[in-house]
């Protein structure tokens, strides 16, 4: 079976995957609200998204109004949503759930790190996998090379870099072997980045949120455009653990997420066709709101997939309803789609299906129809 990369005409090696992890357990029922379901309104008398406020997606769901910047991406068919998605971990513990989701089982390494190592499309470049933040996320563990960056400016040789780089290039110029070749690639990548950093910023990029998240997205776009061999980037966005005063917590977080994604989309322009963004979280929240105007840890939530040829404008995963027989445990939206089945079709655009299967050992993949 040929992988999708060949079908869509974009070679797997030209593709980039951007993983945004919403840390803290984001409430899927607020992000993508089942406004047509009466049970939802009964369970969330205070916190619900009303049918009037919601931005309609289909017969059942509406986007939270704070996600309005995503509407054009939905309308253009580039943004797909999967509902009632999550992992098999039922501990409802942030640590355990994130741990399982990122490792994808008890195998060593993270799913993304394993995938990058297994697919091994050749010489891993210095910037083939980048984690924005201060720590390598567990998902990227085991990658052939992984860079943790707060900013691309870290990626330089410091003062006098210019002269040093030229001298280094000269020292390696006499090496007619693999090291010399790798050195020349590296020097080229550095020069491309430098040119990009000095080039005037596209106007479209001006409306990234002015925070770490927006900056990480902006720099990811920069790396994609620079063609330095970025295979995967991970970005964390926190602030979703809404036990109390959920509205005050989630609204700014949704703002950042939606504005960031919209700016990234505009910034990348045609390069969005070879870049897929996936947004995930460790679990959703309890269906019923609590007495502190918040929600507690639950099970199913949502995932977003944007760009890279995803056939969007659809909410996948179906809707089981919120009747008591449909709920799990203490009253949680069940997980109907395992998150691996959302990641798998995206990874299949970057590698053979057998490689994707090995990145998720001990799990029988049934890839969601993100592309078909």
């Amino acid at each position: 079976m040929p992988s999708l990369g060949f079908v869509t005409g974009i070679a797997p090696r030209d593709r980039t995957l951007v993983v945004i992890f919403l840390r803290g357990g984001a409430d899927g029922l607020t992000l993508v609200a089942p406004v047509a379901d009466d049970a939802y309104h009964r369970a969330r008398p205070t916190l619900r998204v009303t049918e009037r406020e919601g931005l309609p997606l289909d017969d059942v769901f509406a986007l939270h109004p704070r996600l309005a910047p995503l509407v054009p991406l939905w309308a253009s068919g580039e943004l797909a949503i999967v509902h009632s998605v999550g992992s098999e971990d039922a501990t409802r513990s942030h640590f355990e759930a994130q741990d399982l989701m990122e490792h994808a089982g008890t195998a060593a390494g993270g799913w993304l790190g394993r995938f990058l190592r297994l697919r091994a499309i050749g010489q891993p470049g210095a910037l083939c996998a980048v984690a924005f933040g201060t720590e390598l996320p567990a998902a990227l563990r085991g990658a052939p090379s992984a860079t943790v960056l707060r900013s691309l400016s870290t990626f330089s040789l410091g003062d006098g870099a210019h002269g040093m780089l030229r001298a280094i290039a000269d020292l390696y110029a006499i090496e007619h072997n693999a090291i010399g070749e790798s050195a020349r690639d590296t020097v080229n990548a550095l020069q491309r980045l430098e040119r990009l950093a000095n080039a005037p910023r596209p106007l479209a990029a001006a409306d990234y949120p002015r925070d770490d998240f927006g900056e990480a997205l902006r720099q990811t776009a920069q790396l994609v455009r620079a063609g330095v061999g970025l295979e995967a980037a991970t970005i964390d966005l926190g602030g979703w653990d809404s036990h109390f005063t959920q509205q005050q917590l989630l609204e700014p977080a949704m703002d950042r997420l939606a504005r960031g994604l919209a700016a990234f989309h505009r910034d990348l322009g045609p390069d969005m066709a070879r870049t897929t963004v996936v947004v995930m979280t460790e679990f959703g929240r309890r269906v019923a709101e609590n007495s502190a105007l918040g929600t507690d840890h639950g099970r199913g939530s949502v995932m977003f997939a944007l760009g890279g040829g995803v056939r969007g404008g659809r909410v996948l995963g179906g809707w089981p309803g919120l009747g008591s027989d449909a709920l799990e445990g203490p009253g949680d939206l069940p997980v109907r789609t395992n998150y691996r089945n959302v990641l798998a079709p995206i990874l299949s655009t970057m590698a053979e299906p057998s490689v994707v299967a090995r990145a998720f050992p001990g799990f029988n993949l049934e890839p969601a129809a993100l592309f078909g």
Partner: protein
Amino acid sequence: MITRRQFVELGGTLAAVSALACEEAPPQLASLLTPATEPVAPPASDDVDLVSHVVGRLSFGPRPRDHANVRSIDPDTDRAVERYVDAQLAPEAIDDTAVETRLRRYGELEESAGELYEYKEQVLLASLTSAAILRARYSERQLHAVMVDFWTDHFNIDSAKGDCRWLKAADDRDVIRAHALGSFPEMLRASSLSPAMLWYLDGRVNRYGAPGDRPNENYARELLELHTLGVHGGYTQQDVMEMARALSGWTVRSRREVVFGLGKVEFHPEWHDDGEKHILGRVIPAGLGSRDLDAVLDLISLHPSTARHLATKLCRRFIADDPPATAVDRVASTFVSSRGNIAGTLRALFATPEFMRVRRTKLKRPFHFVVSALRATDARTDGGPALHEMLRRMGHAPYQYPTPDGYADDETSWLGTLLWRWNFAAALASNRIAGTHLEPAAVRSTLGGEAGLRAHILARRPTVAEREILAAAPDSLPLLLASPAFQRY
């Protein structure tokens, strides 16, 4: 300079030569050898000489005085090198108090397996990593440190899996460092009963309770494929399954099951498949119980395939990525005849003409590169988080390789790290790494000036082209450390 006779009269073993030269040596003795103020002669030939070659391969790279110190062992270079090798093969005779003093602050790493659980996992990983860097940087027992690095990959354990978070520290101490230059069969046995290994390769859940139970094959497979016979070592899937049966019943007390005796390894006869097994054409009779373990280890630890597998890996580390068959043969046969004596096997390797002849065929892995730069520049370091971060960027963070095959030891796997090496060279040379400090002027003066520094770092005199490039640069040190020559050993 002292004469060899004077040196012997000092009562020192030859091993002490390098010990005395180290910066923490008692000043009155050190001054007899190479007074700290007196410059030493750097390598002087246009090609890498024998001393540079051997020190480069048996250590994490020469310090400014190492070349001169080894030459001073004997006026005859071959003899000097031979005695340097002998000394390195007997690490227990080398005084290493300097590094032991530095490691004293990581007392938690000396705790028993059970006590390790009292510490935060992040603290243990950071301490282990710092200790590895400090040993590689400061230990006089350099070959031992190099072999610890080798075995750490051979018996790889990802410290992130399950209770390995706590138990890897005990494995590092009781398996890897305890046996690095000792007996391979003993090391293998220690590894098979290491609580961290029982966690990492699921041996602890390899249980046979009732007929029809399938053994967990994970450890059995890697034991054959990676630790001993090698993937083409002539075993079958049937052998793997039989091996798993023989190893069933060994487990380790874990956090979730018990409160007392955490990390304790024990044999549960009720989880052991005590029937007859057929492994590698041999019969392990029924009823041996826990003695199955020694029966199967005896079958494989000195097996000809194990000898060949280990000899190939050792020759890959010390000779070339694609090791010459004649050297592999000789090393494999010494492995068998010495009953798996690691020091003896290495002695044979170092005596092969292939080892003596090659030069600079190996690309330093990132850990080696980083430590060799610290050593080359006499940099002081705390081995702390700034260095851990650099190693992670280069994809070579100690104890964090996920799969049981360990970090690769070939050039291709590491070519993508050049930029971070240059970055490190620039940061180190301009003292921009927190917790690490060097004094370029002092290094230059130790080596008699700029020309000496160049010859020391390149391990030979620079070529005409190199001289021109270096002459045009405002500071040669970062360039020398970033140069292709310094990436090799």
